[in-house]
C-alpha cells in the first residue's frame, strides 16, 4: 500500500513520519512536494508536522493555498484516509477539510510535553484498532495547538461523532479538551499530538503500543497484514 507524505516548505516532521511508515510499519511511503500533484495510486495521505512557511500569518494558512491541497481535497472526497498531524492538522483546518481553528495555547508559549489522549471515536481509518476511551501516552509540541470551535459547531461535532481524541486533562485550553477531530465521513483526521514520536519504545518512556495502533488501524483499514 502507498502512503503519500506531503512536504511543504518548512515541514519538519516529514522525515520522522517517513521513517515510521517505512522502517516501523513496512509501508511504501513517498514524499510529495507541495507544488506537485498526487497520483491516483495513493492509498492514504499524511500531512506531517512542522512550520510550513514559518507559521507566518497563522499556522497552516499559507500552505492551505498550495496546489497540492486541491488534490488532497479530491482524495478526501473519494474517501481516501487522510491524516494531518500538528501543522498538518492546522493545514487541514485552514483549507476547510476539517472544522474548527487552532489558536495560540493559553500559556502563550510553545509547549513540548508528554500528554495522555483518550480515544473518543474508534471508527475512523486511524482509530479502528482502539477500544473506546483507550488511553494513549503521546507527546505534543506546538505553539498554536488550542483547538477551538463555537458552541453550535461543537454540538455538530458531537452529533456526527467527529471528536476523535481528547486530552485526559486540560493541556492548552482547547474546546472540550479536544486534541483531534475528523470530517463527517470520518476519513479525514487531524490531531495535534505526534504519533510518529511515540511508536518506538526506544524514545517512548511510557508505552509505545497504544500509539502504534494509529498506524495499525490504517493497515487494517487497507487490509494489510502487519
Amino acid at each position, binding site marked *: 500500500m502507498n502512503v503519500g507524505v506531503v512536504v511543504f516548505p*518548512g515541514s*519538519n516532521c516529514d522525515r520522522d513520519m517517513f*521513517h515510521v511508515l517505512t522502517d516501523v510499519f513496512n509501508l511504501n511511503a513517498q514524499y510529495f*512536494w507541495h507544488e506537485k500533484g498526487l497520483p491516483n495510486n495513493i492509498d492514504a495521505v499524511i500531512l506531517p508536522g512542522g*512550520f510550513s512557511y514559518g507559521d*507566518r500569518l497563522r499556522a497552516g494558512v499559507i500552505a492551505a493555498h498550495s496546489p497540492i491541497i486541491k488534490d488532497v481535497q479530491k482524495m478526501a472526497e473519494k474517501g481516501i484516509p487522510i491524516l494531518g498531524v500538528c501543522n498538518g492538522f492546522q493545514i487541514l483546518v485552514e483549507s476547510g477539510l476539517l472544522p474548527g481553528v487552532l489558536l495560540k495555547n493559553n500559556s502563550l508559549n*510553545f509547549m513540548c*510535553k508528554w500528554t495522555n489522549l483518550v480515544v473518543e471515536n474508534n471508527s475512523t481509518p486511524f482509530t479502528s484498532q482502539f477500544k473506546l476511551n483507550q488511553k494513549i501516552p503521546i507527546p505534543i509540541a506546538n505553539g498554536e495547538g488550542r483547538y477551538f470551535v463555537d458552541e453550535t459547531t461543537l454540538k455538530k461535532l458531537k452529533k456526527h461523532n467527529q471528536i476523535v481524541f481528547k486530552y485526559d486533562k486540560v493541556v492548552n485550553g482547547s474546546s472540550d479538551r479536544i486534541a483531534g477531530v475528523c470530517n463527517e465521513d470520518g476519513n479525514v483526521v487531524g490531531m495535534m499530538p505526534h504519533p510518529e514520536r511515540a511508536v518506538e519504545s526506544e*524514545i517512548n*518512556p511510557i508505552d509505545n503500543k497504544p500509539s502504534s495502533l494509529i498506524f495499525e488501524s490504517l493497515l487494517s483499514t487497507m487490509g494489510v497484514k502487519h
Partner: protein
Amino acid sequence: MSLEPQEIVDLKSKIGREPTSTELQIVAAEWSEHCSYKSSKKHLKMLPMTGPLVISEKGYDSGVLDVGDGYVITAHIESHNHPSAVEPYGGAATGVGGVIRDILSAGTRPIAIFDGLRFGNIEKDPQARWLFKNAVTGIADYGNCLGIPTIGGEVEFDECYSNYALVDVAAVGFGKKENLIKNHANKGDLVVLMGGATGRDGIGGSQFASDSLESENRSAVQIPDPFIEKLIIEAILEARNHHLIKALKDLGGGGLSCALSETADTLGIGIEMDVDKVHTREPGMDPDEIMISESQERMLIITSKQKLKKLQEICKKFRIACSVIGHVTSGNLLHVKKGNKTFANISTEIVANAPLLDRTSKKPAYLETIQKEKKLRPISNFSKTMMALISSPNIASKIWVYGQYDHEVGIRTVVKPGQDASVLRLDNGKFLSVKIDGNPKHCYINPREGAIGCFEEACRNVVCTGARPIGMLDHLQFGNPENPEIFWTFLESLKGITDFAKYFKIPCIGGKVSLYNETPAGPIKPTPLIGVLGLIDKNSLISPKVEDEDCLIIIGDTKNELGGSEYYEYIHHFVGGNCPIVDFKESKRNMETVLHVIKKGIIKNAHDCSKGGLAVGAFELCMTNQIGCQISLDKVPGEKLDSDKILFSESHSRYLLVVEKKNFQKLETILQKNKVSYRMIGKFGGNKIQFNRGKKSLIDLSVDKAQKAWINSLRELVLNG
C-alpha cells in the same frame, strides 16, 4: 569599525601601499578579535586536538568525530552575547542560526541544539527577567521552526551578568562520512552566495562583539528568519547529495569579507567578485557595506560551471535566492569589483592572518584573599533552607525553559532534557550523550580549578548515562583581555582545561573564544563553558523507576569545598572559600567504575552531585522519581565536617547511584575492587525526604511539597517576579 594604529602600519608594510577604504573595512572585520582570535590564538594551540576518532579537514567550522560504521558526528559551539544583551530575542535566535550553519557547512545534518544561558539576578532585576524570557523565546522560535530538537543546556543567574547576557549555543550534526564536504576549488569555479538578501543589518557586528558593550555601539541588531534557514538546510543537503558543492562556508561574523578571505586562504585560491551581483535587501548599498554586512541566513558555495544549473534549480525549488557573485582565480588575491571598478585587491593570506598579540598577564589581586573562609551564621532550620535552595533560580527545575523547546522532533531523543545529559540514538545503533556545563562562581574563586570542574562535571553527566567521553567543545568567555588580570584568568582556565583533556585523552574538537564581555559594572566572572560528547556502544541506561527498598549509594569524597557553592552564595551571600578541586586520579577511578557498573546493568540509576551538593542531588532523584528517601549523613565518606558542609559541599567526582537491594552485594564487590570511596547512605521509600545525623533529624520534607516548589518556582519568577 576600525583598526588599531599599529595594525594600520602593519597592513601598509605588508601590502606595500595605502589600502583602499574597502580594504580597510575588510581587514578591520577580519582582524577583529572575534574573527582573528588575535589575543588567544597562540595559546589555544596547547589544547589537544587530535585523537583516534577525530577527522580533520581543511576549512571546517565544526569538529568531526568518527562514530563508526561509516558515520560521523559534527559539533560546534558559539555565543551571541553582545547582540543578546541588547535584543535578547533576535540575538539568541540568530545565535542558534549561526551555529547551525557551522554544522551544515561540513555537509552534515544538524540533529541537536544545546543552550547555555546566563543572566543577572532575576529575583530582583526586571531587566534580567526580560532578557531571560526573550532569549528563551528566541531560541525556541528558531530551533523549533528548524525542526532541530533543543535537548539540553543550562541556565544560571549571577549578579556579574547584570545588564548583560551570555547566550551560548552548541549544535551537533550527523551524517555519512562519505558525504562530508571535502573543501576544494579550481580556477574558473564559481562562487555562489545563497540565502537571505544582504542588508544593512548587523553591520559591524564582529567589531561590536569585540568591544565592550556601550550604548553608542548598540546598533548591530539582526532579525532572525528561521524559515529561510530551514530551506537553506534542505537545499544544501540536497545539493550535497547531488555532489554540487566543492566547497562550503557559512557567513557569520565579518560577513562576506571573512567568508571569502578565509575560504581563499585555506584553499590556496584567489577570488574575484562583483558586489553588484550580490542580492541585496535595499538599493544603494555601497561596496564596503556589502562586504561587511552580517545579514543572517547566508551560505557561500563554490561549484563548477557545469553544476551551476542544477544548483540553481534546487535553490528555486526551495524558493531561496542565489547569486553567482564571482569566480575562483589562481593566486591568492581577493579582488572586489563593482562593475569594472576595483575596490579591493588584496592578498587573502594577509587578510586572513591577523598579526597575533602577546598579551601580558598578571594574577588578579583579589585571588590572594578570596579563598579565606568566613564564619557563617548557623542554620536553625535545615528544612527551610532546603526549600529555599530548591526553589532558588539556579537550582529550580529548568522545565519552564526546555518545555518551550521541541526536544522530540527528529525522533532521536532517548534521554530527554531534565536528566543529567541528553542522549540521542544514531543510525548505526549507537547512542550519543551530550552535556554542556559552566560554573562562573567556582571559576571566579579559582579560574583553573573552576574550569577543570566544569569539564569534569560535563563528563560526569555524560558518564551517568553510560557514555564514554569522546570529545570536548570549549567556549572561553572573559572580560577585556587588554586587562592583564583578566588575561591571566583566561590563561589559567585554558591551562586547566588542557591538562584535564590530556590526562583523560578527550580531544578538543572545537571551541570559541568570546572576550570583552563587560557590563556597566565591570567584567563578567570568568565563564568557560565545556561541552562533552560521549558515545554509548550498546543500549543506554534507561532508568527504571526507583522503588521502595532501593538503596542510595554515594561514590567519591565530600570535602570542605563550598567556595562558590549555591549554599554560600544564595543562602549566606558569601562569595569566597575553597573552590572544589578535581583529583584527576580519583576522578578517573570513579568515572571508570560508574561506567562499568552501568554497563553491567547492576544499578538502576546514576546521578551526579553538583550544584547544591549531595542534598540537592538526592532531592532531585527523589523528586524526579516521586519517592521518599531516608539518608544518614554519618556515613558520607570524606572529611569530617559540619552537617551543612556535608549537605551542600560541591566537591567533584561524586555520583549518586540507585541500586536494588538484591544487587548491592555485587555492586559493593566492584566498588571495593576498584578502590573507590563509597558508602550506602540511604534507603528509598515513603513520601518523605529525610536527612539525619546521628539521632538528629535535619531535613524532613514531603516529596510533593518539594517537587511542587522545584518545578514551579522558575516559571513563577519569570511571570510574576
